[in-house]
């Protein structure tokens, strides 16, 4: 198999590139996700002791997705009858080094599995590799295997998450259709790094390549609500004729939405959500946000649980497990949305009020 040059340069593979390279992987993933989407099957295996799992979060503060992940992993494990014990590790998004120390700590204990949400993918590469060599390791929230780890002892058993580039493309497609491909867009960016690049830059490139839409401004919102509010306001002042403010996270969307609402320009400006938490969906129904890149959230946690179980029971696990992400917009009826959320939040339930 030949690794595309672009991927070599980048250091990691995009999901389509991986599936191009290894078509079997695509089928394996589809099959596995089928299992994830179906009801739990009780385990036959008798475990002599609970599986000890380390769950490494890169901060739980940025949206409810991580909290839902946590809940759905636990719930699915229970449903499957796999005994487990979870130890949570948390760092702030900028504490790259502390996550390194946590890896050290995990390597010193006797975990059966490690699920790591890297603070920044490339930065934690060496830690992921070290973990993988000693403990079965799942990488979450990134679906882009490192080229040079593929097929080595340092490769994690799987990557579980959402493909943010697919989310960006879904939003891009929707935006072009909605706007007719004409107009100005400004970006409110997330914390600088891979996730922001996959969400913001990918979206920007996609709309500019495929339409006459123009990206006219960026604001460095750092994923912060209040900052997004100020930034969105300033962008709206600078570009009174703007068509869309692209928000790269839920918190940013909330801030931008508040700015547009307060100015009374909600009908003139498109603001998107990113992630599709219940708050974003409610806002869509209320006529606030127009669209969101909706993550079928509990598939993510379920996939983590299923992958652990499969590995523990000696079955193969695909290199990447990407859960569905799709654009949901204001045209949907409340019933349709409820259908989506009933499924997507089947384990994590009602976190919002």
């Amino acid at each position, binding site marked *: 198999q030949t690794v595309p040059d672009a991927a070599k340069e980048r250091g990691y593979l995009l999901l389509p590139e991986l599936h191009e390279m290894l078509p079997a992987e695509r089928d394996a993933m589809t099959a596995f996700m089928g299992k994830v989407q179906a009801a739990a099957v009780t385990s036959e295996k008798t475990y002599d002791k609970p599986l000890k799992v380390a769950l490494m979060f890169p901060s739980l503060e940025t949206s*409810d997705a991580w909290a839902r992940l946590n809940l759905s992993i636990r719930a699915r494990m229970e449903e499957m009858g796999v005994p487990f014990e979870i130890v949570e590790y948390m760092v702030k998004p900028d504490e790259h080094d502390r996550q390194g120390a946590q890896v050290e700590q995990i390597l010193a204990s006797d975990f059966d599995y490690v699920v790591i949400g890297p603070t920044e993918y490339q930065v934690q590469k060496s830690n992921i590799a070290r973990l993988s060599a000693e403990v079965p390791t799942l990488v979450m929230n990134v679906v882009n295997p490192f080229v040079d780890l593929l097929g080595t002892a340092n490769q994690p058993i799987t990557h579980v998450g959402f493909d943010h580039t697919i989310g960006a493309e879904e939003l891009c497609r929707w935006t072009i259709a909605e706007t007719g491909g004409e107009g100005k867009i400004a970006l409110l960016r997330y914390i600088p790094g891979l996730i922001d690049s996959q969400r913001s830059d990918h979206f920007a490139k996609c709309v500019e390549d495929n339409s006459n839409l123009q990206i006219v401004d960026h604001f460095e919102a750092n994923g912060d609500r209040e900052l997004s509010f100020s930034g969105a306001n*300033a962008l709206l*002042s600078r570009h*009174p004729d703007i068509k869309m403010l692209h928000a790269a996270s839920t918190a940013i969307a*909330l801030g931008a939405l508040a700015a547009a*609402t*307060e100015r009374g320009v909600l009908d003139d400006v498109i603001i998107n959500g990113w992630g599709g938490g219940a708050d974003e969906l409610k806002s869509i129904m209320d006529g606030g946000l127009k669209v969101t890149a909706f993550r079928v959230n509990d598939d993510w946690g379920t996939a983590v649980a299923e992958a652990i179980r499969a590995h523990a029971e000696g079955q193969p696990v695909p290199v990447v497990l990407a859960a569905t992400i799709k654009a949901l917009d204001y045209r949907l009826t409340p019933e349709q949305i409820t259908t989506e959320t009933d499924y997507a939040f089947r384990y994590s339930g009602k976190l919002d*009020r």
Partner: protein
Amino acid sequence: MTPATDNMSSADERRAALLGETGWRATMPPLLGPTQVPLAAPIAMLAIIAVGMALAAPNFFAVGNLRAIALDASLIMLLGIGMTAVITARGIDLSIGAILTLSSVAFAAALKDFGLPLWVSIFVGLTVGALCGLFNGLLITRLRMPDFIVTLSSELVFRGLALVYAGGGVFFGFPEVITFLGRGRVMGVPMPLIIALTLVVVAHCIFAYHRVGMRLHAVGGNPTAAKRLGISVTGYRVGVYVFMGIIAAIGGIILTGRLDAVVASGAVTILLNTVAAVIVGGTHLFGGRGSIIGTLLGAWLLATITNAVVMLGFEAFWQHVAAGAVILITIALYSRRNTRAEE
């Protein structure tokens, strides 16, 4: 007239002159209160920015944009009132973001999870804010721990508690009263600005012309002296933290109204903006000298900067650099003045 009598009488004349002054100049307390605070720097900076923006980005003066700045400024200003009191009393509160968050979560939980009436829920929110402040204040005074480190740690504690309760979840859909407080307008003026300015006026009167304000300055300026003069230094120090807690809770409710949502994360940058606004406004970082009016100006300046760097089309990352530079320049102006006065 011999030189002797000349000299004696000149001292006597001086006595009489010093004493004899009447009229409003002699009976009016100094405008800014018991201590002198230089306000020229933030005013100058605001003027410079205003002129600059008028030339470079006329949209800056659009009503909508001014209102946007006002909204930003009003939150900073509001929190700045509390922070000015804390810093003047020789303290600092680094936990305001977490207090704001925890009290909004408490408010939202009371309203939504426990179904309490709106006014009761607001009371719950304010009480939680006050209790957080009390916690800080008691640790600082009773156990004599440094403010800096107490509030640094209690930020972790309060935010942790907010997250424990709310999880990653979001509360949304609040009554109209609340959203009106956060984003409503009265005759075109945003509600948060009305609230903040009202509090600024009240706070300034107390700060500058009331016994409480005067004693507060003394508590920060020379705690030993204040204590010897029978002022309850401990009481004042605890008091400012409780006051700060309540103010942060009010800020939390306004923010809830603005976003029509409560999240347990967030409200991080607000701390830096608030402290920067207070210091830019001339309040002395080591206590004893402070000005609410200065904080008003400082808040306006900080809100303007964030807006202006975007309006001027700075690229994303240069926005940071520009904002930092403007703060530095303002304080530099101020510090020069200050130095000249003190030498």
